[in-house]
């Protein structure tokens, strides 16, 4: 059922037996699945089949996939309101995700969380979060536990550059560096906090914030999945071996509005700018061209990957639409553990 192929116990770069070709074809499939997933979300939302809010990840796929491919299944992530890509990249199944988005009982949170709160213990997903910066404490705490419980797990904390405004981020970065915690702060700089360019809300530099704490920092082109994966793998390995936290800035772009429904957005960014990113910097196309150049695939092969992914995603949507809602009697269940 899962369009995003579930990963073996030690996925990603760690797995030596996975050939370069297989690795990047897999990554390509993951990115394509996320793109198609979001297309369907847009469709469901516009047809009024999906309640609430929908923040699409399209355009940013190389960040989630590039990083999660360097993680083990038992490593943790925390995610954001724009979280579908992170969940899928960490191995969640699209059918149960769509079910959650539609508020169905088969969803990852039995319909109680919705798009902004998907969590999945089986893939180490501690949860998406609708509070900007809301998961920085959780991620750092999971790293504290990973270290103190004697595991070699690593935590990736995904957040948008808007979260740089939240003071709690600086409190936990200080703790993480003091205590050498295995957490990677991944700043997905898609240029805009909601409807405002980040330069209008961010003094100084992004990396300078982490530098101030003596945290290892890196900056990468977030549209280039091979670059993201390579840098992430190094930082993750470093954290795993006890050398402490890192801060990774990934420069990227969200193709759509802040949420589905943010249609008239010329007042904060031009159509021309959007078009440039889509035509020049598309992460899927960039990897596709590279695969072809390397002779790892030809155009028809990539087309086949797309078609197969589309079939799976469409089946997942159908599963979710047909799935039942939870019984109203569940409303006061799970308030306390």
């Amino acid at each position, binding site marked *: 059922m899962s369009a995003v192929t579930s990963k073996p116990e030690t996925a990603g770069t760690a797995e030596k037996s996975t050939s370069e070709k297989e690795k990047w074809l897999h990554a390509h499939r993951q990115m394509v699945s996320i793109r198609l997933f979001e297309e369907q979300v847009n469709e469901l939302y516009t047809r009024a089949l999906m*309640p*609430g*809010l929908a923040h699409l990840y399209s355009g940013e796929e190389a960040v989630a996939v590039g990083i999660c491919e360097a993680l083990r299944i038992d490593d943790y992530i925390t995610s954001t309101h724009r979280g579908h890509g992170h969940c899928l990249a960490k191995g969640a199944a699209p059918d149960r995700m769509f079910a959650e988005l539609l*508020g*169905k009982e088969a969803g990852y*949170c*039995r*319909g*109680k*969380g*919705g798009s*902004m*709160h998907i969590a999945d213990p089986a893939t180490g997903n501690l949860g998406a*979060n*609708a*509070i*900007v*910066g*809301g998961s920085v404490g959780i991620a750092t705490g999971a790293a504290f536990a990973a270290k103190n419980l004697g595991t070699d797990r690593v935590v990736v904390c995904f957040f948008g550059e*808007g*979260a*740089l*405004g*939240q*003071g709690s981020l600086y409190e936990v970065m200080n703790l993480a560096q003091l205590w050498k915690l295995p957490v990677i702060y991944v700043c997905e700089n898609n240029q805009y*906090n*909601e*409807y*405002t360019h980040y330069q*209008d*809300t*961010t003094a100084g530099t992004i990396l300078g914030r982490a530098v101030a704490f003596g945290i290892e920092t890196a900056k990468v082109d977030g549209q280039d999945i091979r670059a993201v994966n390579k840098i992430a793998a190094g930082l993750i390995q470093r954290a795993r071996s006890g050398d402490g936290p890192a801060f990774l800035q990934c420069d990227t772009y969200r193709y759509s509005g802040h949420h589905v429904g943010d249609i008239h957005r010329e*007042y*904060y960014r031009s159509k021309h700018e959007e078009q440039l990113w889509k035509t020049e910097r598309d992460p899927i196309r960039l990897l596709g061209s590279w695969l072809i150049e390397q002779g790892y695939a030809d155009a028809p092969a990539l087309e086949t990957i797309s078609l197969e992914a589309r079939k799976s995603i469409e089946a997942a949507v159908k599963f979710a639409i047909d799935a039942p*809602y*939870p019984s*109203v009697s*569940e*409303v*006061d269940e799970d*308030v306390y553990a």
Partner: protein
Amino acid sequence: MPERELTFAQAVREALAEEMRRDSRVCILGEDVAEAGTPFKVLSGLVEEFGAKRVVDTPISEAGFTGVAVGAAMAGMRPVVDIMFGDFITLTMDQMVNQAAKVHYMSGGHWKVPMVMRTTLGATRRSAAQHSQSLHAWFSHVPGLKVILPSTPYDAKGLLKSAIRDENPVVFFEDKMMYKLKGPVPEDDYTIPLGVADVKREGDDITLVATSSMVQVALGAADLLDREGISAEVVDPRTTWPLDEETLIDSAKKTSRVIVLDEGYGRYGVTSELAAVIAEGAFYDLDAPVKRMGAMHVPIPFSPLLEDATVPTEQNVFEVARSMCQ
């Protein structure tokens, strides 16, 4: 000539615009308040009239810019901060509770904090547990803060203007489901004093005390009750603090039965306090225990059927009221 009608959102905007024209110390601070006019478009047009120095976009730093408002208020301005969703007041709590609320008292009356925080409340927008709460009880609990819960466009304009002119920190909660609600709003410069309840509908058999989003629910229930020959009075306190205890108690004495409705959590909440005030003040005139109705004591779920079950509806209120009157 028919009375002019505005939506709730337009009434809020008009109050702000009028006060900003009247008093150059009034400014707005918040996320996407300028060109974007907030995600709810409540503030659209203000930056065009007043400029980016008075309608100030901030980073996503609720604690920071609320603190800035406290200091700016102490030093001579009249800031109005915009907290997009009421759920995010949690991030501002130290600034509001330990600083804004106490500065006047702790300084022996020397410093004042004339600021307003505008934010939202209300569920049923399918926004899930972190974008749907009604947390006004938290601020109502704190000496030094005033809390306003407007339920009509008319009240919104008059109460917000009073809030901006007040010498104290005032929190103004807008029901986000009500932004499109229309109602008569005079063009003139009127204010509504804080601490004066409004009887939204007169009746004899039962009193429905309702706040904010629950006022419309109470009015709908009153219509249903009317068809059964039960006459319901709907009283809107409009502010949880200062509280017009007298109007609530008088209505309870008149009808002898009371339901208190508020979209926050009932436990240790606004309904509990209002019910206690009424029970203390009208005990010997009551024919039934005061009934409380509010949000179910659960985080707000995403799934629509579940979410709807957490909030009182006209039908629920009607049924409870009818059984109390039998």
